[in-house]
């Protein structure tokens, strides 16, 4: 993946910047230009506003990957999950800071900022969100929060428009 291709999505991958339809209030991640929920969806064109996800969510499905995606060889075995955020959107993401075989449907998780993969020894390093248990598991500390987009502490579910 080219540097520009990854870089242009940084606000989303680093900070969980989604969007909200100002017509029907549905929240989306990643952001969309038009709302698929509104019955007259053209009405929402130009009316989607930025919306910050809190990073809180629940695992709704999981797998432990042994045959990895390219660039993820060092992580095997890793827990790939679907996390339903409290704001609604579902994300495909790894759950870390827990034995991958301990991940279950219903596990409460919190977004954390991590290295995703390296493109070879001299290539680009991709960073972005993963999730970690929201409560302590086996004495492990709570995960580091995502970096704040404006350098300020972030309130959950706050619109940033």
């Amino acid at each position, binding site marked *: *993946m080219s540097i520009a291709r*990854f870089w242009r*999505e940084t606000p989303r*991958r680093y900070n969980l910047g989604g969007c909200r339809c100002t017509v029907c209030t549905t929240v989306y991640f*990643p952001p969309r230009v038009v709302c698929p929920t509104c019955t007259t969806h053209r009405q929402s064109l130009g009316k989607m506003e930025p919306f910050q996800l809190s990073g809180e969510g629940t695992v*709704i*499905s*999981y*797998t*432990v*990957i*042994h*045959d*990895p*995606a*390219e660039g*993820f060889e060092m*992580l095997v*075995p*890793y827990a*790939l*999950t*679907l996390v339903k955020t409290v704001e609604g*959107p*579902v*994300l*495909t*993401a*790894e759950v870390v800071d827990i034995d991958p075989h301990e991940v279950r*449907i219903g596990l409460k998780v919190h977004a954390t900022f991590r290295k*995703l*993969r390296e493109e070879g020894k001299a290539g680009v390093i*991709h960073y*972005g*969100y*993963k999730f970690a248990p929201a409560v302590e598991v086996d004495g492990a500390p709570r995960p580091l929060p995502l970096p704040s987009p404006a350098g300020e502490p972030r309130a959950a579910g706050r619109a940033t428009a």
Partner: protein
Amino acid sequence: MREVAILGIGMTRFGELWDRSFRELGIEAGFQALVDARLSSRDLGALFLGNMASGSLIEQEHIAPLLMDYAGLAGHHLPAIRIEAGEASGAVALHQGYLAVASGAYDFVVVGGAEKLTDVPDVTANRITGATADQEWESVFGATLPGLWALIARRHMYEHGTTREQIAQVPVQAHEMGSKNPNAHYRNRITLEQVLGAPPVAEPLGMLDCAPLSDGAAAVVLGPLDRARKFTDTPVAIRASVVTSDTMALHHRGDLTRLDSTIVAAKRAFGQARKTASDVNVVELHDAYSISALLALEDLGFVGKGGAGTAFAEGRFAMGGTPTVNTSGGLKAQGRPFGAVGVAQVVELVRQLRGQAEGRQVSGAQLALAHSVGGTGATSVVHLLERTN
């Protein structure tokens, strides 16, 4: 719109065919179909070619005119059109060919599907085929195609009580069927214990839950049904041809245990053909991963929601079943050359409807259904085929 028939079929052996090139495979399947249809190339109107990723896999784009050229038909200057929809490329190509004949734009067309997956290392092929999922929001975060289907499997187990053992019955039956198909990539039988004990890929799915990376090509010749008798004694009518789409990423679906694109495609297809699921005798459905087949059986309406695991394990879809499923061996055993599978499914069903499926014939097969899926269901395709007597 006029009625469309399949007049000829052809396919290569599927497998790791290191001694054969992409163009060799495509031409072999195409010529078999033309010869089978007793159609002169002078009567040909167009080629529709399903192919997923020749640019990445063999570093060759623009492949439809290339196959026309090496088939000796460049001088006819016919339209040669490539179609891509991931693993459903071949099935979507069939839809385009169907529309072309039904509309009257062309009388006779060849629909082909071809893919060459073994000219790159497995890890590269997995990356390329994994690109049928959302690269930006799934793959970047560590998702693989089997990983995404494993997420579906886990949720199906959670919501419907489907067991690992029930899921593992799917490849056992696939290999049993494949053992009777001379074109199949795998012709060995496997046991439930072997499936359960295979190395894990994406839990709960293991190596034997996943269809292989194969090379191969398949082709059919289409023409107007009212002229079909001139070419074949057993024309097979295409009673419905439906393509549907859905969200690209699995995580944008409301329900993880079904593919809405398949549910809608089946509903529209049965409506077009004025048939129901219980009229169908033989099915070729998407079983790239064992769980895919269980989902398809439910989504196509052959069993109630959540009931596929139990019904499959009871043998309801084995030879002589209601309906019989994947007599070719499916993607699992017959093989999985991505762009070719949708056409190969139809080749197998035409054999069944003609009564030519030696060693694996479903007796009295009259109505057949082909089901193809791209990625995790962003594309689904359903065709209904009927023997005309």
